[in-house]
C-alpha cells in the first residue's frame, strides 16, 4: 500500500504523525508530509487509522 498527503487540504492538526511517526512527519511549517515508500505490514493498520481520523481527509491510500 502507498500513501499520499494532500498538502492543500492539510491543516496541521498533527494527528497523523502522532499515530504513525514513521510514515508521517510535519514540515517546518507544521503541515504533514510523507515520503513515497511502500508501507510495511506493521504500518498499514495505523495508516488506515490516520486516514480515517484526519479531519480534512487529506490522507489517501491506493487501497480500493
Amino acid at each position: 500500500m502507498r500513501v499520499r498527503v494532500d498538502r492543500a487540504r492539510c491543516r496541521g492538526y498533527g494527528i497523523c504523525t502522532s499515530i504513525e511517526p514513521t510514515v508521517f512527519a510535519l514540515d517546518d511549517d507544521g503541515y504533514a508530509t510523507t515520503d513515497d515508500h511502500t508501507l510495511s505490514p506493521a504500518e498499514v493498520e495505523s495508516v488506515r487509522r490516520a486516514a480515517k481520523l484526519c479531519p480534512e481527509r487529506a490522507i489517501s491510500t491506493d487501497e480500493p
Partner: protein
Amino acid sequence: MLTERRFTTILLPDGAAVDELVSIDDRWVAARVMTDPDLYGLELARIFDRVWVFVGHETEIPNPGDFVTRYIGADPVIVARSADGDVHVTLNVCSHRGATVCRVECGNAATFRCPYHAWVYDNTGELLGIFAERDAYGDGLDKGTLSLKRARTTAYHGLIFATWNPDAPSLADHFSTMDFYYRIVFGLTDGGFEVAGPPLRWVENTNWKFAAENLSGDGYHLMNVHKFLDELGLIPGWSDPTMARGVTSVYDRRTGDGLQMAHFFPIDTSDLEAAMVTSTTLFGLTETFVPEIMRRLSADQLAVFAKGISAAGTIFPTLSYTALPWPTGDPAEGFSFMRALRLAQPLGPDRHVVWTWPLLARDLPGEEKERQRRTTLRSFGTAGLVEQDDAEVWSANQRGIAGVQGRQRRFRYDASRPVNPDWPGPGVARTAFPDEDNQLNFWARWLELMTA
C-alpha cells in the same frame, strides 16, 4: 426512624438557613425547596456534581463510535462507545475556550471537531489534534493536559451512570443495598433489556423534584390522579384504595433511593414453580424465562418476585422507572405490560425536561416487544394518558407555591406505618398503603447533600 444528621449551616441570601427548610423528625419540607433559584444553584453543585447520575442506556450506543449527548445537571456530556468497546462520558466543553464540541444528539463518530477553532478530540475525550497547531502554538501546548474533562463511568444492568466526584464510592458499592431490587427490575434475564430510542422528551414547567420524589414512593396519588383507568374500564378497581394494601415501600437511607413493589395480583407461592410461571408472565415475560430467573435470583429475591410484582421507584436523584402489567389502551389489544426509564432533567427551579425510554426484554419476540413499547408510550410517553395528568397536577402545584406565602407552606409526610419485620429484602420496608416514608427519605438524602 429517620433522624437528623450533623450539618453545616448554609444561608440563603435572605438569611434563611437551608437546614431550616426540611424537618425529618417533624416530617415536613418547606415549599421553597421547589421554587428558589439559589437552592437550584446549590443543587447543581452539591447534588448533581457529586453523585452518580444516569446518562443513558448501553443499548443506545451498541457499536464502537456510537454516541449520544446528555446532561449531568446543567453540564452537557458526550456518552460514547470507543473503539475498544468501553463507554466514556466526557464534558462536552472544549478545553480551548468552552465551546460545545458536539452539537448533535446522537450519531457515530471516531472524532469530534470543535466548531470554533477545530480542536479535534477522540471519543474518549483525548485531544488528538489542533488546527494549525504549530502556527498557533509552536510546540508549546501539552495536549495530554487538554483532554475533555472525563467523568467516572460505570454501566450497571445496562444503565450508564457517571459522576465527576473522584471520592464517590464505586457504583457497585453505592447500589449494594438496592441491588437486591434492581436485579429484579433491570437484571432479571440473561439477555438483559434494551431501550427503544431516541428518548421521548417534553418540557414541564415544574421543579424536577416533583417527579423524582413522587416516583420514589407516592402511591397515594395513583388512584385519584389516574382514576380514569377505573372510569374507562382499563383497570377495573384502580380507584379503590384497599386494592393497594399489599404495596411495600422500601427505601435506602444511604442513597436516597426508594421504590414501591405491589402485589396487585397476589399469587399463592406454596408451589413455587407454578407461582413463578404466573409471576413471570405477569411481569411482561414468558414461561421460557422461568429457569434463568430462578438461576439469577436468590431465594429471598424469589420470595419477593414469585408473589407477582409491579415496581416503581426513583434512583436518586432523577432516574425513575416503572414496570407493571398495563392496558394497551386499545380495548381490542387488551392488557399487556409496561416498563420505562424516566429521567427528570433540571432546567431551572421551575422547569425540567422529562426523558422517557420504553425498556424491553431483549429476548422477547419482536411482536411482543412492540406491543409493550406501544403500551408504555401510550400511557407513559409524551402524550401519555398517565403522564399528562401528573404534569398538570405538578404544574398547578408549582404555580401555587410561587409567592411569598406559598413558598413558606410545608409539604407534609405524616402517613407512616411500622416497618415490616418479615420483609425478605434489604432497606427499610413497610407494607402499608399509603405511606410517605420513601418520600421523606428522598428529602433526608437531599438535605444531607445540600448541607454536608
